[in-house]
Structure formats: structure tokens, C-alpha cells
């Protein structure tokens, strides 16, 4: 039975979950997921896995260049690099690209924020009074915030260049649809719509049938949705959200943008 390994971050765990259920793989393939952060016994097990790996799907991350699994690869393994899907301009203040919020910690229950907000962290000292901080954040009446439309232009260019470099089409799909369709729940977490698209492109590269993709693509990342800032909605002309849109918060509540920001300030001070 041929073996396929998917290497990458949490986004690839979503791909793996779909692959495992697909008729194209269910009977005829062994499908494994290797998380890039694995260490100790898990890493040792991953390394052994690669001895007889037929196809390795590598998410396009810089981490791969120094990953110990590279040395364990058989020369016969077919390697396919594929895009890491994200669109940072929808969440221009996220900690991923701006740096962490030093006040953030991974809480519990309804205090558990899965993503950090760098700007709210920066404003903590600048605007100590919570209501004033909320207003400054809502209006972006603060120095050194990125031009949102310009940010989107750079992000669109990156997606199209990645398509060209990796011979994929998902970047074009994101560029054409991010304003009118909900493709992400958070900066790096795709919705089922985008995840299914990515799975289809991978199946196409593998020469496999895409039957069952829609049925097998669940909302793996929908449990925590980061609201869009109203000025992002306005400046990027987003049609799938408005200021009243509610976002799933740990499958416990559905919060508007303002309620989410108030909660963030309440939890982290």
C-alpha cells in the first residue's frame, strides 16, 4: 500500500483529516500527518515513517529547510510543495505578523483567545482606560497602523507569486474571492470552502479523484473565529461581513467585533 505523508502546521492537520476520509485514499493509501513542531518520540516515529514514504506533501514553510526529516527522506520519494494559505490583510494587527501581545496568555473556557492582537497589546500602555482604548482601536486613531488597502495589494501579489512558484491556483482563487466569500476564520485558519479547494488542488496534482471532498471537508477551524475590524470591512469592501456579524468563540458564544474586543480587553487588561 503506498504511503503519503503531509508535513506542515495546523492547516495541514485539516488537510489530513479530509484525506483520511476520502474514497480516493481510504482503501488504497496509508496517509500520515507530520506536524512540523514534533519532537522526541513523535519525531523519531516520523523519521521512521519516511523510510518508505512514496509521496510527501510539504507545506511551503521556511521551517522545512532546517527540518530533521529532510535527511531521512528516500531519494525515491516524490515531493510536492504546496502553498500555506493565509491572508494577513484581513487581520492586519494579528500577532503572527506584528509580533506577540506581551499580555496574552492562552486562557480557559470563555477566556481563551486563540489569536493575539498586537495592536490591542500596544495600546494597553498607551491608552490604559479600557473604554478609551476600545474607541482608539475601533477608529484606528493611532500612529503606525498599516494602510489596509495597500496591505491587501502586497498580500495579493504574494499569493499570485506563490501560485506561479509552486504551480498552484489557490492564490488566484483567494484573490478573486476573499471580498465576497468567507475563506478564513482567522489569519491562518481556512473555512471549509477554502480547505476543500486546497484539497482538490492537491488531489489534482496527485492524479486522484476528488469524489467526496465536499462531504469530507468539515469545519475544522470554525470553533474560534476572529472578527474583522470594521475598517477592514470598509476599506477592502468585504461583503460577507458587517459590524453586526457574529463570530464563534470556542463553540460557547457568538460575539460581534465589539464584544470580542471588549472581552479581549477584559481578559488581558
Amino acid at each position, binding site marked *: 500500500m503506498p504511503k503519503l505523508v503531509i508535513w506542515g502546521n495546523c492547516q495541514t492537520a485539516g488537510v489530513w483529516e479530509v484525506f483520511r476520509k476520502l474514497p480516493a485514499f481510504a482503501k488504497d493509501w496509508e496517509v500520515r500527518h507530520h506536524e512540523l513542531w514534533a519532537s522526541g518520540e513523535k519525531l523519531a516515529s516520523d523519521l521512521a515513517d519516511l523510510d518508505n514514504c512514496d509521496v510527501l506533501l510539504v507545506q511551503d514553510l*521556511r521551517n522545512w*529547510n532546517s527540518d530533521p526529516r529532510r535527511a531521512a527522506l528516500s531519494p525515491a520519494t516524490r515531493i510536492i510543495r504546496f502553498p*500555506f494559505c*493565509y491572508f*494577513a*490583510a484581513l487581520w492586519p494587527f494579528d500577532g*503572527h*505578523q*506584528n*509580533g506577540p501581545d506581551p499580555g496574552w496568555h492562552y486562557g480557559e473556557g470563555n477566556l481563551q483567545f486563540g489569536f493575539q492582537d498586537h495592536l490591542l497589546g500596544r495600546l494597553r500602555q498607551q491608552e490604559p482606560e479600557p473604554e478609551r482604548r476600545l474607541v482608539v482601536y475601533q477608529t484606528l486613531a493611532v500612529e503606525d497602523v*498599516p*494602510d489596509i488597502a*495597500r*496591505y491587501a*495589494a*502586497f*498580500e*495579493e*501579489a*504574494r499569493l*499570485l*507569486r506563490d501560485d506561479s*512558484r509552486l504551480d498552484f491556483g489557490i492564490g488566484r482563487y483567494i484573490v478573486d474571492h476573499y471580498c465576497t466569500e468567507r475563506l478564513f476564520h482567522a*489569519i491562518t485558519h481556512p473555512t471549509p470552502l477554502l480547505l476543500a479547494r486546497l484539497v482538490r488542488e492537491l488531489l489534482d496534482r496527485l492524479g486522484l479523484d476528488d469524489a467526496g471532498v465536499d462531504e469530507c471537508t468539515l469545519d475544522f477551524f470554525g470553533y474560534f473565529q476572529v472578527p474583522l475590524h470594521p475598517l477592514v470591512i470598509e476599506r477592502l469592501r468585504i461583503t460577507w461581513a458587517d459590524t453586526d456579524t457574529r463570530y464563534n468563540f470556542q463553540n460557547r458564544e457568538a460575539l460581534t467585533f465589539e464584544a470580542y474586543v471588549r472581552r479581549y480587553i477584559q481578559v488581558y487588561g
Partner: protein
Amino acid sequence: MTESEILQRLADVVRRTFPGAASLTITMETTADQVQGWDSLAHALFLMRVERALAVRFEPMDVVDLANIGGLVCLIARLMSA
């Protein structure tokens, strides 16, 4: 502005954007891989800061995957002389 002056200004932006680069010597050969925190997620924010600091405007496709600081210096020099 000379290429050396552009490099100096770029080095300031690199250090301001990526705290991990505070003590790093930035040269024409410096690449994003050598700067902690300078990944594809942070690249666009860095470019927008460069635009502001040097009063230039890039064509996004020209800068999304520049190989090193030297490439950016040359591009900025071209834009400034145009």
C-alpha cells in the same frame, strides 16, 4: 541618495520591524532567512514601512520575493532616480 545611505535607512527599518535584528549587521547580502521574525507573514508590513521611511512606492509584484537587502536597495535607487 546613495546606495550606502539607502542601506543605512533600510537597516533602521529592519531593526525597528524585527526586534530580533537589533544587534545584527545588515549588509547588501542580508536575507530574510537571517533575520528572526522576518517571514512571509511579516514581509508586507516591512515593505510598507520601507515605503514610508524612504518615500517610495513599490510595484507589489517586484518586491514580494526579493532575494536580499541588496536587491531592495537597487530597486529603491532605481525608483528614486526615475
